[in-house]
């Protein structure tokens, strides 16, 4: 029992980080019907930036979020304006899938050329410390990372729920054409939403390097997890993504200690297939029409 509770704690803490990355991915889809396959690569890019800031300038990774996130935000807005906006509308969805895949390969290639393929890890002085709470070990960095991700998610929620920009985003998600009629500047909303979507990857990426070692190829595994999270949560639903991420974290951690680590990520896929059988649109998703 002790082990299961320990695993659940770990699962929730891990799930929180994935929730942040996935929320940006699903937000971007909701606003502009674009699956950003480069989200994983952007997490890794941010992890490298934060690693470089820590190694060369001793900037704490939790502070470097403030530097990395705006940079990636600008990159995201740029990508949207240069590549994605220029796609022809009839095939925009599937082409954007492929173009962001190409972007992911490009980022991997650049990182490989600059940093080689050696695994890196951001080793802060407190990287190995842990608190003991009621006999359970809670890793300090994981707790901090979880805290940061929750904070960013709350900010994201406030932005969407309480601001004018948020209202225009939600209007666009619900009904793009009437949003347009109501005077929402679609291009601006899209560019900003894409920027915000990828900055969640940046925020999570800055702390990713503290939790796990990474190299330029790490994005394949990340994106497969992120995509499965957003599908399970329902494409376009931020709340669904958060719920699915937490579920993934807990299922994987519990299966790893109770059955075998070999089957831990597989077990999550099984859950996913089972749920898709019952609800093809995921937890909170609306049923998609054909292309």
């Amino acid at each position, binding site marked *: 029992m002790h082990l299961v509770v320990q695993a659940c704690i770990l699962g929730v803490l891990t799930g929180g980080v994935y929730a942040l990355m996935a929320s940006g991915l699903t937000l971007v889809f909701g606003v502009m019907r674009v699956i950003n396959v480069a989200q994983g690569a952007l997490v890794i890019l941010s992890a490298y930036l934060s690693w470089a800031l820590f190694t060369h300038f001793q900037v704490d990774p939790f502070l470097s979020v403030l530097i990395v996130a705006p940079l990636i935000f600008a990159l995201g807005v740029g990508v949207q304006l240069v590549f994605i906006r220029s796609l022809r509308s009839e095939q925009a969805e599937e082409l954007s899938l492929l173009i962001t895949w190409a972007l992911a390969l490009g980022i991997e290639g650049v990182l490989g050329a600059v940093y080689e393929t050696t695994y890196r*890890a951001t080793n802060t002085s407190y990287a190995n*410390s842990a608190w003991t709470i009621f006999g359970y070990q809670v*890793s300090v960095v994981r707790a901090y990372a979880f805290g940061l991700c929750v904070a960013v998610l709350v900010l994201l929620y406030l932005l969407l729920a309480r601001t004018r920009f948020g209202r225009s985003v939600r209007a666009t998600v619900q009904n793009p054409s009437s949003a347009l009629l109501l005077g929402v500047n679609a291009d601006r909303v899209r560019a900003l939403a894409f920027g915000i979507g990828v900055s969640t990857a940046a925020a999570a990426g800055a702390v990713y390097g503290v*939790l796990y070692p990474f190299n330029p*190829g790490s994005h394949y*595994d990340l994106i497969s997890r992120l995509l499965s999270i957003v599908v399970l949560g329902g494409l376009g639903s931020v709340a669904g993504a958060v719920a699915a991420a937490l579920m993934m974290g807990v299922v*994987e951690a519990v299966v790893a200690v109770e059955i*075998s680590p*070999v089957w831990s990520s597989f077990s999550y896929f099984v859950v996913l297939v089972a749920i898709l059988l019952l609800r093809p649109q995921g937890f909170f998703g609306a049923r998609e029409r054909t292309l």
Partner: protein
Amino acid sequence: MKLARIALAIGLVAALSTAAASSAAQGSRASSTLKIGISLSLSGDFSDSGKAAMRGYNLWRDVVNAHGGLLGHPVKLKILDDTSSPTQVVSNYQNLITKDKVAFVFGPFSTLLTAPAATVANRYHYAFIEPAGGGPAVFGEKLHNVFFTQPAPIIDSADVFAHYILSLPKSLRPKTAAYPSLDDPFASPIADRVRTLLEKKGIRTVYKTIYPAETTDLAPIVSKYAAMKPDLVVGGTQNNDAYAQIKAMIQLRFSPKFLFFSNGPNDPAEFPSKVGPQNVNGIFSSGDWFPQSKAPGNKAFVAAYAKKYGKGPIDPTSPEAFAAGQVLQLAVAKTHSLDNGKIITALHKGSWPTVEGVLRWNSIGEPQGSDLLVEWVHGKLYPVYPKKIALHAPFAPKPPWGKG
């Protein structure tokens, strides 16, 4: 559609004419330089090791050319990138052998690429001296032309640790053991070998598991075996999972009496920075090569390496590749021939001194030596067993984290 036909026709003509042009070019080649072909992973997952192998090969080329080449022919290396893909490696060796008509080939990096590459070399009756394909998949092909230039097949590389444990008096030996291993051809089979050897002598296995390569989170596994408090932990690992396991052990404040990881702690440059220099003491690992090793010609190799590439740490892949060159050089000198067939026959007999130690092989290319056991003592990595090559005595039990 007419256009489709035209496009195809153009494509075919282009393919045929480049083929003709290249075969014409092959006729008029100066013959005094001797070409050796190698496919290396210069991009993709294995690219760091691929580049380390390239440094070793290039250094050997410089050394051999400074001594007059092979039978008077200056050596030129033709290196192709295989992007770490087995499909590409097959194309590359076919290119090297049938297009570039190289005199010899050397192996690529990793078992994954060596196994398919060795079959291509075998098909054209080329000797396949290879520095980095030591997994069972390579030897499982039972090819007569393969020669692996490390002291022992990879899966036997931790046997030396089992021998050390069994050399201890019974009262000092661990009673219980856990074996957490990575699912990798270079990792889990190593721990399996040690487990078989130790179980036979009554050391009880309390936990064993294999975790997949994409497991970034090892905390659940470590908390599981930490709860069983084994005296000994043997991990068949690569570097990152070894670091992650140690981090988790520190967080869980679990310090076993004996701790062996097949990879990770044997990297003198990276290991202290990854787990903290205060946490390294008493951890065991094994390896085929160390800068201080007393193997024939190693001192000269280390000096030449520093001169060419600077005084940084040396990736063991570089001396492994260098040794592949040395083996060819010795075999050519012995047979006085550049014939692959004669070289294969010669290499199956006798022993061959290299920077990796004195090598000899069985009929399928498995080397018949043993690796070195190393341990961190007072913040430094020393070969500690077997005795005749030890630079420091092994010590146990391992001190608690942050001590000793």
